């Protein structure tokens, strides 16, 4: 067939084949051109606060921000599209970690310097109970004086 068949082709079929792939190619071209121009297309997100990073489970960004000087014990703004209430909130990273029910993130924040004193612990335990985050309740209770 290869040698015997005519070298022409069905252009309508070729177009049908090419159209979806051309759409992908435009995306690829944007990536490559942006890359060569020094931009970071499809990559760099907006800057996050520590609490926002916690809300989107970005453990590495939490650590990077804290190592860069961000205070893990103060309240930080969480933009409306990251918050469960869909309104801007100002919460601590630990509250954000409890909000998304991630024990490993609570542990990470404590390792990175977040303080769990008695008032903070009581507030976090109450919130974790509301969210049925039993593993977090157990962890926080272990850090306190006993189950409450």
């Amino acid at each position: 067939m290869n040698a015997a068949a005519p070298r022409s082709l069905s252009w309508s079929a070729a177009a049908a084949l090419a159209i979806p792939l051309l759409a992908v190619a435009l995306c690829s071209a944007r990536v490559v051109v942006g890359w060569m121009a020094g931009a970071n297309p499809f990559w760099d997100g907006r800057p996050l606060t520590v609490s926002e990073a916690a809300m989107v489970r970005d453990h590495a960004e939490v650590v990077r921000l804290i190592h860069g000087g961000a205070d893990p014990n103060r309240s930080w703004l969480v933009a409306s599209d990251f918050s469960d209430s869909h309104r801007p909130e100002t919460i601590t990273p630990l509250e954000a970690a409890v909000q998304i029910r991630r024990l490993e993130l609570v542990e990470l924040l404590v390792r990175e310097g977040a303080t769990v004193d008695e008032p903070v612990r009581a507030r976090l335990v109450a919130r974790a109970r509301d969210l049925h985050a039993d593993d977090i309740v157990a962890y926080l209770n272990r850090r306190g004086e006993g189950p409450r």
Partner: protein
Amino acid sequence: MTRAWRAVAFVWGTLSAASLAYFVVRVPMQVTDSLANLLGAREQSWWTAMAGGVGGGYVRPLLGGELKLVDAFAAGRETVVYRGLHGFELVACVLLFVSAVRVRDAASALAVPLGVAMLLGAHTFDGTVREAFPINNYLTVVVACLLAVNLSHGEPRRWRDVTAVALVVATMLTVESGILVLVCLAVAWLTGARGVSRGAVLAAGVVALALIGGRFLLPGGGTPALSERPSGFGFGRLEPQELQARFGAFPYFFYAYNVVCQALSVLFAEPSAGTWAFIRDLLAGSLRPARLVAVASATGATVLVVWFCASRWSVWRSRAFEHDDRLVLVAAAAVAVNAALSFPYTKDVIMSAAGALYALAATVAAAALLRRLAVARPPLVFAVSVLLMVLSAGWSIRLLAVHYRVRDAAFVTRNEWTELDAWAARNRVDLSSPTRATLARRLRDDALDRRVPSPSVNEHGEGRTLVRYFE
């Protein structure tokens, strides 16, 4: 005009490869799978590094050797060197793929974009770009197989012979699926490709036999035990203990299951890693669009290849083979042998070389279809064009999806560095010495400095729908 079409194909291949390479080089070095290997490469002698890959059912001395070699250039800039090598291998893979198609007219040039999408978007290719150890040896084998195909299809030259034999030896001593390089050379020669001589193919075959024989003579040689790793079976996954309990006395049924599943996985994207997830989710009413797209697009590619085989069958019976025929037959042999090699356990990435060669077969089949439609009746052309557009759309989604999944891998990998100490304790990796601590800290800091937006950011609103088509 042929030159122009060839240039179009290579530009397309370069663009696609560079686009994915951009995402690949942004993945930080892994803690799991990479850090311990890096520490080993830095501290062990050449002999120890290579001997470490021999035993327990494996003969992979060059696995440690290659790592040692690259590490000689990587001290102090590990991420740049290893990620750069990964990106380079990816680009080489795509360019060798385009070269193997041998674009000679508009039809073959216009089939290349579909072929590249099939190569990069296949689920079997996923593991070659999402992870590294820190060199991805599966990708190395894919590159070696495509290089073998290119070597076979050219003017006979002594350098091709020498390169072909060296390629077989190097890849077989790196990972077991390296024998697929020999399969490519042998099938190409048997079907009339004379770029590599008969003597070179025979020499490579003798060396391969010696290596396979040597593997069985080594202490603990033979096949990996069932107790080594989990594997998919039926609608789920069995842990090593379960595998041992169920198949330990008579593992041959399990081996046969694995071989069949691995072959079907390339042809239909189902089962995946030995698990019939598409059927399971379909029956449960929880089928994700991504799985449907994968199965439909892979099946479409297989229909193309089957059509090509059927249309060429009468010519093949007279043992007359052209370039496109050879590519299809090489792919068929590679799928069979790669599946047979996978008998101990199933994993999609093990079939990456067969998947890449199968994409090559589907590419020439698509080109042949475009040529055939030039003389077909309009209603048939219209119907087939609609099907081709659906097929192309499916593979376009899969091509975009692999970019998304690589970015997801970057996010996960970066996060893993926050658990470095826990990982080291769990895997008994001592990081207390100053040199080890310095290397681990440097890699961790480098990973943390590579900002990767959380995929969760995209999972709100419209992004959530899109993601369902990607994973």
